[in-house]
Each structure stands twice: as structure tokens, then as C-alpha cells.
């Protein structure tokens, strides 16, 4: 809560960190209103933000990444909207929906199948339907997974999976899951890494040593196998996974990097000034060191999200997560139903999901690189 104070300042006590407007008022010998601190902070923040945004805009990579993320964001938002309006949940629900797509087949002689999507062998037709069908007949068989179709009562833009569920719906839902996971993981990582790094840098000595040894231990542990073991021990859902990934990454490499950054800030003179002015340890850490470490933290947050999304997809692919639906699960379904090496015949089972994971990860990564150019002026193109 800010209070406005009117201060009469004498010329000898001019503090040259004040606004120039204040200085002018001082010179004129007038009364001066001190702007509340939070307002100054906000103004500075907004100014630096727009400055950095301008720089970021210059980076082609960063902007492309932002567009990609926006597209996926739209997908995530679109899903509940579609589910509640246009789509019939019985058909389109990503987990429980079911649509028996009926495909028309022309029956051909055994061994004369040219296009397996529209022609059916005689013996197989007899097995599926009834023994009296003949060559040349047109039969309709409900089949999953069905290829994409835009027509009919329930259009499936990307077809259905082996269990009859709409792929497009799953894709959109997976977007939500990915964002949720990504942010939980990244925020946890950043929170822990920033705190750890700042504290270690500030206190130094034994505390620093302890955190660094701990980070070494974490670095030693390969993330995927550990998560696999974890998921076997505990039933993990999205949020838990995010937190786990966050904890494991937060104490590791990122802490080390952020610590060096915090160290370089700690040795700056304004920290000493703050200490002399009577700032306590906690105050210095949280008011001075952390805000200056944050830009780097955000940078790593982007990379963290990339890693988390891929990690979850891999774990889901192995079927180790207690998650109802995600992109990884989509591929897992394709795999367990035996469509893994189907290639282009059933492309909609593998490619949308795989490409989605790759593209979203790609998007966050290049946004990170774009941010890198803002934070590290050396990388900028002149």
C-alpha cells in the first residue's frame, strides 16, 4: 500500500537516482511529491518489457515459435468449446468416445487385393460377415481404425484410432495435457532452481557445497530410467509428473547455471550497498538477486517445457503413466494394437501425434532461443 508523502528537500540532499522531473522541481525549490516505489518499479518494468519485446520481435525464430505455441494454445482452448457445442460426446470424447465407422468394401478373389482400404478378400469377408458373400459384392463393415473423412454424420478429420475414438479430438485434448504438464514442470523447475541457485550463491561455503554436490548426484541420475522406476512404484498423473520432473530438474543442471548467474550478481556493488543500508539476507536474496536471475530462469523455463513434453510422451508411449489421454498415449495405442510399422497405410495413427509432440517442443525451444538472443546480446545479428 503506497502513501503519498510531500517532502521538502534541501539542495544538498539531492539523490541523483530520482526522476529528472523531481530534480527539476528541486532546482526550482518547490515541494516535491515522491512517487511511490511500486509505481516507479512498474514503469521501469513496462519500459524494459517493451524494449525486450521489440528485440524479441526481431528474432525470426522466436516469432515463429510464438506462432506455433499460439496455434497449439488455440487447439487446447478449442477442445472444450467443441465438446460442449458441436460435438456429440458419445462419439467425440477422446477417451470414451466411440464411432463405428463403416467402410465399404468390394469383395475380390483371394490374393487379388490391390487396395486394402477398399477391397476385401473373399475368405476374410466370409469370416467377417457371412459365408454366402460372393466376389464383386459391395459390403459394409464397421472398422477401426478408420481413415480421415469429412463427410457423413460424424466427420473425423483425422480418422479414428483402433478403439474407435476420434483422432482429431484426441489431438486437441493432448494439447491441453501438454500445456498443463509443461507449465507445471517448468514452473516447479524454475522455482526450485532459482531459489537454490540464489541461496547457494549468496551464502556460499558449506551451503553452496551441499547444493552443488546434490546437483552432481542429480546430474548423475539419468532422468528417463528414474522416471520409469518412479512410475512403476507410484501411479503418476499429469500434475504429479510435472512436479516430479520439476523437482528432479530443478535441483540439477539448472541450479548450477543459475547459481553462477546469481554469483555474478552477488559480487556487484549494489548488493554491498543494500547490505550496508541494512537489508537482511532474505530481503537481499529475494529483492535483488532473484529478480536479476529471473530472465535467465525464464529462458530455461522454455527449454524445460520442451524436455517435459517429450519426457511425458515417451513415458506414455511406454504405457507407464496414469493419464487418460495424451499424444504419447495415442502412439502407445497404435503400438499395442499392432499398427506401429504400418507406415503410410494408417498414417493418421502415428503422424499427427508424433508431429504434434515434435512441433510443440520445437516451438518452445525456438522461443527459448529467441529469448536467448535478447538476454545474450552477443548472439544478436547486427
Amino acid at each position, binding site marked *: 500500500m503506497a502513501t503519498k508523502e510531500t517532502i521538502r528537500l534541501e539542495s544538498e540532499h539531492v539523490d541523483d537516482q530520482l526522476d529528472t522531473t523531481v530534480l527539476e522541481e528541486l532546482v526550482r525549490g518547490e515541494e516535491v511529491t515522491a512517487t511511490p516505489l511500486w509505481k516507479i518499479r512498474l514503469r521501469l518494468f513496462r519500459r524494459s518489457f517493451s524494449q525486450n519485446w521489440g528485440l524479441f520481435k526481431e528474432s525470426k525464430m522466436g516469432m515463429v515459435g510464438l506462432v506455433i505455441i499460439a496455434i497449439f494454445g488455440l487447439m487446447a482452448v478449442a477442445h472444450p468449446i467443441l465438446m460442449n457445442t458441436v460435438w456429440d460426446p458419445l462419439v467425440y470424447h477422446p477417451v470414451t468416445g466411440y464411432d463405428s465407422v463403416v467402410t465399404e468394401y468390394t469383395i475380390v478373389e483371394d490374393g487379388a487385393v490391390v487396395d486394402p482400404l477398399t477391397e476385401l478378400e473373399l475368405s476374410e469377408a466370409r469370416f467377417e460377415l457371412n459365408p454366402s458373400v460372393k466376389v464383386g459384392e459391395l459390403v459394409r463393415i464397421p472398422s477401426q481404425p478408420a481413415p480421415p473423412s469429412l463427410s457423413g454424420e460424424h466427420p473425423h478429420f483425422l480418422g479414428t484410432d483402433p478403439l474407435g475414438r476420434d483422432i482429431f479430438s484426441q489431438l486437441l485434448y493432448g494439447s491441453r495435457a501438454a500445456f498443463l504438464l509443461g507449465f507445471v514442470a517448468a514452473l516447479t523447475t524454475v522455482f526450485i532452481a532459482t531459489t537454490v541457485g540464489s541461496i547457494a550463491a549468496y551464502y556460499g561455503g558449506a551451503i553452496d557445497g551441499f547444493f552443488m554436490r546434490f546437483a552432481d548426484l542429480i546430474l548423475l541420475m539419468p532422468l528417463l*530410467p528414474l522416471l520409469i522406476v518412479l512410475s512403476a*512404484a507410484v501411479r503418476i498423473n499429469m500434475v504429479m509428473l510435472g512436479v516430479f520432473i520439476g523437482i528432479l530438474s530443478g535441483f540439477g543442471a539448472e541450479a548450477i547455471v543459475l547459481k553462477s548467474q546469481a554469483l555474478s550478481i552477488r559480487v556487484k556493488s549494489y548488493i554491498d550497498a543494500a547490505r550496508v543500508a541494512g537489508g537482511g539476507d532474505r530481503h537481499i536474496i529475494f529483492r535483488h538477486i532473484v529478480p536479476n536471475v529471473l530472465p535467465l530462469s525464464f529462458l530455461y523455463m522454455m527449454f524445460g517445457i520442451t524436455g517435459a513434453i517429450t519426457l511425458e510422451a*515417451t513415458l506414455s508411449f511406454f504405457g507407464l503413466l496414469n493419464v487418460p489421454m495424451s499424444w504419447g498415449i495415442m502412439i502407445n495405442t497404435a503400438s499395442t494394437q499392432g499398427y506401429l510399422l504400418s507406415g503410410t497405410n494408417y498414417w493418421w495413427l502415428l503422424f499427427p501425434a*508424433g508431429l504434434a509432440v515434435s512441433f510443440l517442443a520445437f516451438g518452445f525451444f525456438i522461443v527459448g532461443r529467441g529469448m536467448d538472443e535478447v538476454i545474450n546480446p552477443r548472439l544478436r545479428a547486427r
Partner: protein
Amino acid sequence: MIKFLSFRLVQMFILFVVFLSIVWLLLQAMPGDISDTLIGSPEIPLATRLELRARLGLDQPLFVQYWTYITNFFKGEMGVSFSRYPKDVSTVLFEALPRTIVLFLSATVLAFWMGFKSGKLIAWGRGGKTEQVFIVGGVFLQTVFYAWFAIVMLWVFGFYFGWFPIGRFISVALWQGSGFDATDVFEEMILSVFIVTVIYGVVRYFIRRYSQNLVTEQRMLRGTLALAVSGLFLYWYLDPARTYVADIAHHTMLPVITLGLVAFGATMLITRSAMLETLGEDYILTARAKGLSDRVIRDRHAARNAMLPVTTSFVLALSFVIGGGIVTETIFSWPGMGLLFLQGIGVSDIPLVAGALAITGVLALFGHLIADILYTVLDPRIRLT
């Protein structure tokens, strides 16, 4: 140096014990145990299952189990594999270990070599279409969903083009009745490559040391390399097992390429950044002023310094490659430690899983150590005192 090493080894030992303990405890948290796999079979009475548990020591209190495990481990016994009873864990794992290491090492070496070379070249080239393509390609490889990528690679090159076999270590049909054992042949292959590499390395060192002339030095180095490679080929060509060796080699290629491609992307990007930073240094300007050729400046001065941050990133990349290895082994059905690990998890074969993780931990620790030593070799400003 000795002091550093011994101190470091003690550190590693402690870290390892902590790691192993944590892993083991985590594994205990897995619900159920091996005897549950028998539940599905109604003919097996409860008493049998209980006896199985007793025999495997699963009915003992937790602390006793832990202590037994740790003490046995350092006696060299990793216990008996529950799922492959009565084979013990060491046998099972050490059979699979060389395969995993070959996959690992080949992919890493390939990725590092190509990644460093290309990163160096595009950083030097200063912009243009090629650089953009490489950067985008590199980022794509680094962020692509690896499991999916491996599946696609397998399908495209194994299934569709048919250039490579579809996973697995050997074409079983080929080997039946041949009288050769896959593991033995494989070990022989590894040994031969290892010996040739060591000899090559030594010869290379001596050439560098005692060369007077840059031109003859290059020629001699290239000649020795050609000699080494052709010598290796000749040796195997004359060996009666050559078709089987070729079979193994053929199976190894696609998994190595797949894993290597992804690591390549990352290495290339890091090399490029490191090079760009190095190129801004003063000594590069000095090198230009000295009238040195572009190639010398790029390789001898810039790239050599760029190697330092790349080596650091190596350590971090180790964790990724291990994870990547597991996925690769799964999709390509490559019978290495990663596959065993996953299978062990599936059936709660705790000793097997613990053993696999333990070996992984040891490898990671030593990899870390080697990277640190390498770093001091590369940077004279850092000495291990």
C-alpha cells in the same frame, strides 16, 4: 594428480552408494512382486507362490534385504534375476552390456565428430541459406519426439526401403546351425576395432609429435587412417565368420544412425554457438593479422577453443543419451541393457533393474570423470591441483 584422482574416486564411491540405495528403495516401492506374475495361473497354489517369495528372500524385513543387497553388491554379486531364474544378474547384464555400449559409443562418436565438424563450418561460413537449413535441421533433430522419430526411421529405412533389417541384433535364421555364437563374434569384433583404434591413436600421436612439415604430416595421418581401416576390413574378410560379422554390423547401423542423428543436432548447435563466441575473441584478430590462412584460424585457433564448452555440454548430454538408448533398444528390439531394464520393470524383477541402474550409474560417473580429465587436457588454464 594422484591426490585429485583418489579424492575424486572416494567422492564417486560415496555418490554411487547413495545412488544405489535410493534406487533400491524406490524399487521396493513398486507394488507387488515377482510372485504376482504367477497369479494368473490357477494351477499354481498359494503355497508355491509363498515359497517362491521365501526362496528369493522377499519375506525378510526390508532392512535385512537392503543390507544383504548392498554388501553382496560390493562383493561382486548382484543377486539372482527373478524373472530369469536361476540366472544371476551379473551374467544376464554383462552379456547385454557390450551391445549397449557399442550402440552408445558409436552413436556418440559419430554424432560428436560430425556435429563438431559441421558446427565449426557453418559458424565460420557466416550466414547464408546453408546455415539456416542446418540450424533448423539441428533444432528439429534436437526437439523431435525421439520415440516417434525412431519408429519412422525404422519404418522408412527398414520396412519401406528395406535397406536395413527391422530391428534385432542378428537375423536368427541365418545363424542357426552355423556353429558361431553371436556374443562371441560380437566380442571379437569389438576387440579388433578397439585394438586397431588404440594402435592408430598411438601412431597418430607420434606423427604429430615428430613431424617437421605440416604437409607431410597430413599425408601421413591420412595414410595411417586408410591403413587402419583397410587392415580391419581385410582381417574380417579373411575370417570364416565374415557373413555373420557383416550381419551384426548390418543390424547395428540403423539404431546407431538414429540415435546419432539426434545427438548430432544438439552437438552441432552447441558447437556453432561456441564457435561464434570464440570468433569474437581478440586472439582471432591477432591470428588474422599474423597472416595465417583461414583454415588454420578456423581449426587451430577457433575450433580448438570452441571445444571447451562443447566438452562441458557432453556431461549433460550423457543423461539424454542413456534415456535415448532405452528408447532405441525398445523400438529396434536391440537386446541391450535398456531393454532388460524395461522388461525387468514390467515384472518387478528388482535385482535385475537395480543391477541395470547400478551399471548405468557407474558408467555415468566414469563418463563424468573422463569428461573432467579431458577438460583439463584441453584447457591449460585448468590444472587439477
